[in-house]
């Protein structure tokens, strides 16, 4: 970890100004990922802009009937917020499937979007990594890639985005509000994270110095029929091998609207419009779910140690959709297969 200076910004404008006033700045909220990255010398900012004094902790209903989540509200406060639990239980479930209570108490909503991949090679300076050091190569290709991507990867990078919360946000079509020197703008969630392509060092489409100030959830919360299913190597405090956020709007047994997003499989929460189209207007049956599952993993490519994820994703999608159709009763606490 290199020496750094720290200021605690009192306003969003001051934070944005402070960021651009230094050569190598980083925003810090809960620090649950950035501190690890700094200790491992993966991130070497020389100036940190502390965000925890910003007035961005509120969770409020919007004029359009949606919900606005402040960027520095903690993951824990968000997951347990009565409006989130009542109207967006998919989001609550996804947040609670991630990390540990201690981490969720520190981690902020904006920070959750900004967490970086858990690729072993990204964290180890002894090995080449294009995301850490562009042009050095991807060690995960041909290496130990149990936790890596099966969808949307490139020859430069097969890392995955590790968030659970973001998978639900993708399914719910949240909007990210950001503020930079040029003022405020809104980014559709599907446009926020990016695929690695030729620039895996870029996780998202934020411009330099832009700060997330809020996440806005649209009115529709799929509060009746939803499921967040997370599969991992232990029951808690482990990143997803595959996770599924499934949300259905049912008219009797017919699916009126559907959302499906996958975690642990790509450089960003993975949505398949084709799969969602295969669900809409169809009966909520296993046969329908299977078709959607098949379409979701269309084009999936294994890297060796993660080949199993393709079949696991299919099965997880079917299970999650079944649980959603059944009313989202199952919890994710024990991998959705509570004995």
């Amino acid at each position, binding site marked *: *970890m*290199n*020496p750094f200076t720290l200021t605690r910004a009192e306003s969003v404008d001051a934070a944005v100004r402070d960021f651009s006033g230094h050569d190598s700045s980083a925003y810090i909220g809960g620090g649950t990922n950035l501190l690890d990255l700094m*200790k*491992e*010398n993966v991130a070497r900012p020389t100036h940190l802009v502390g965000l925890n004094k910003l007035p961005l902790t509120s969770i409020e209903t919007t004029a359009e009937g949606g919900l606005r989540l402040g960027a520095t509200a903690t993951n824990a406060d968000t997951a347990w917020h009565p409006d989130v639990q009542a109207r967006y239980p998919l989001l609550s479930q996804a947040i609670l499937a991630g990390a*540990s209570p201690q981490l969720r108490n520190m981690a902020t909503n904006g920070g959750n979007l900004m967490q970086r991949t*858990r690729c*072993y*090679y990204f*964290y*180890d*300076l*002894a*090995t080449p990594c294009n995301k850490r050091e562009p042009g050095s190569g991807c*060690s995960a290709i*041909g*290496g*130990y890639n*149990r*936790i890596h991507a099966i969808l949307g990867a490139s020859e430069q990078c097969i890392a995955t985005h590790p968030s659970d919360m973001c998978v639900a946000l993708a399914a719910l079509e949240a909007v990210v509000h950001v503020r930079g020197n040029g003022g405020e703008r809104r980014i559709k969630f599907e446009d926020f994270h990016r695929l690695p392509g030729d620039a895996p060092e870029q996780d998202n489409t934020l411009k330099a110095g832009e700060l997330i100030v809020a996440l806005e959830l649209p009115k529709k919360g799929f509060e009746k029929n939803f499921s967040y299913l997370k*599969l991992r*190597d*232990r*029951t*808690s*405090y*482990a*990143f997803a*091998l595959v996770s599924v956020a499934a949300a259905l709007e049912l008219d009797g047994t017919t699916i009126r609207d559907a959302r499906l997003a996958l975690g642990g499989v790509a450089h960003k929460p993975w949505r398949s419009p084709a799969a969602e189209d295969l669900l809409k207007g169809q009966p909520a049956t296993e046969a329908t779910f299977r078709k959607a599952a098949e379409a979701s993993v269309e084009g999936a490519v294994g890297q060796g140690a993660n080949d*199993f994820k393709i*079949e*696991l994703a299919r*099965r*997880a999608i079917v*299970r999650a959709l079944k649980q959603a159709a059944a009313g989202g009763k199952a919890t994710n*606490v*024990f*991998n*959705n*297969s509570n*004995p």
Partner: protein
Amino acid sequence: MSSTTNHVGKAPSRVEGPAKVTGAAKYSAEFNVPDLVYGYVVSSPIAKGKILKIHADKVLAIPGVLQVFSHENVPGLAWFDKSYKDDVAPGGSPFRPLHDDEVKFSMQPVALVVADTFELARYAASILDIEYKESTHETDIEAKRDDGHEPGKGKTGYKPPVRRGNANKGLAKAEQHIKQEYIHGAQHHNPMELFGATVHYHPNGKLTIYDKTQGVYNCQQYVTKVFGLSKEQARVVNLYMGGGFGAGLRPQYELFLSVLAALELKRSVRLSLTRQQMFSFGHRPHTLQTVEMGTGPDGALLGLKHSALHETSRFEEYTENVVNWSGMLYKCPDVHLNYQVAALDVYTPLDMRAPGAATGSFALEVAMDEMAYAAGLDPLEFRRRNYAEEDQNENKPFSSKKLREAYDEGARRFGWDKRPMAPRATKEGNMLVGWGVAGGVWDASMQKAAAKATITADGKLTVSSAAGENGTGTYTIMTQIAAETLGLPMEAVTFKLGDTTLPEAPVQGGSWTAASVGSAVKSTCEALGEKLLKLAQKLGDSPLKGAKFEDVEFVNGQIRLRQDHDQAVVLRDVLQTSGEREIEADSSAMPNPLTMQKYSMHSHNVVFVEVKVDEELGTVHVSRVLNVVAAGRILNQKTARSQVLGSIVWGISMALMEETVMDHRFGRYMNHNYAEYHVPVNADIRDIEVVFVEEEDPHVNPLGVKGIGEVGLLGVAAAITNAVYHATGKRVRQLPIYLDKLL
């Protein structure tokens, strides 16, 4: 009056509990001594090669950076290998930190940066520029399948593989026959507490070394030989340990590096490894095993072959007893065991909880399950039919063995008789339910240990021995033994350990501390008792006049005649009228060679497991574990149970999660942190239960104890594997049982 000073066998809470939960208990890297400076280790990014140049100038120019130690500037130290050999070193040439320009394994410590603050040392280490010349490394045991060799003498306690009868002939007679391969990867101990040391440099040049170790004497011996110090110059202390599991048996490199820095800088130094660096030294080796066995018409084992191959380093020949358990757990006339190691460019493996047995019994006990199914027998019944009444490896009777009673008790409590034989027979919703059984055997060892006891006029007893406390309950059981021997309440007794100014004890390993140090404590308190009796007899109208030591007992703060409890004197009166400020005794205990010759001394266990498997998704939940242990006398029901509970969790971990995965292109472990090297969290652990069967053993040692630190781990991973088979019909032979193995 009934006795209130019988403590042994009861369940008192840990005497050091309040110190631990209030933070008063100090761990090695927590001792605050004046004017500390801080070290940070630089680890090699390559697995093999040479260090061409260490460009330290830039780092040394930073104000507050005191020194960069490396092979380029380490002063002349001890020359011969034997100076670097510790008590439990395997054969070969021990790794010497910062010795020369050779890199022998990935993450080898290649430099130590010392600075005024920890943060500065860490930063300086991160920018230290080192040039390497890489050479080709070999790290994959799979590539050495045909290239292993039977080890030489091995380290202390190593037993060469047993061969008796003619296994091929036995197998040829068999009606049913199985042969399978079993594999597990490397596993690291991963104690919560990082390896660390605080070296207090005193003005007179003497050192007090607070080091994370399971053996303070072992470390003192190492430090004095390597650095040419006298014992008075190097006091080693370890009062508490946040888990060892074998990782602290040998002196780790933080000891060498912190002492080096303290001596060179003439400053007090603190050094703590990082979590990543905890993966840079010994581990349970990646092991390939094959078990072949066959049975006759009645299910009797007619022949058994078990072979194992695991990695060792290029510089030391690590050995553990992997296969010999297969020659003694079940009766079999024709046995051929085979054990080989192969040298790779890795650090030397290191004893890890039940070393060898955890590995070997996994293969044996899964094979036994496979064999039972091939023979059409219930797996527990199959074990009963092949019960070993004596130790066939050594051709000796067991000093005691209540494994059959453990089978009975476990089966009854678990409800084993309700188990359907066929796999896939039980379903609950989405889940397939399976039951499995497995067990193991472990040495009941004893080592020489010494102790000292002092009682003061106010009736306070202090007993000491340089044993270790790695969370096992040493402080508590020794307090119990001492208090009971002299008829005192536990509150009147203080036990001191982990300090080379105290009488010598062996390293804390092999499950031998209770037997070894416990016997020494008992013997020392008895020696003190004899002195107290003599003083009691000097009292004016002593009712004990003429009594021999065997005639009296120490109970409830009194010395009294065994035959007539009214003939008693109060211990405190004896002390206060004696005119002595304190009375002292020391003694030691060692194993009895005659008994050892006559008997095979072992602990046994059997584990019953229930798993629930979501077949579609491959997830396994261990919903119930019952571990029945026959390990002689249990000194403290609470701490003993706690140790076995920990073993069960460990076994679940071994079965379902643990594996240090190496990328052989880099010769480097890649999941080297707590986020990616998985051990269970609370949510993974359900109903776990421990039962000790009564096992009186008059031979094993004066206390009748066998130790329970390791035996509880045996069988757990195999029983889970067997239960997964029973649930799903899928036989997994490579650990861990990740969900993809069941898809």
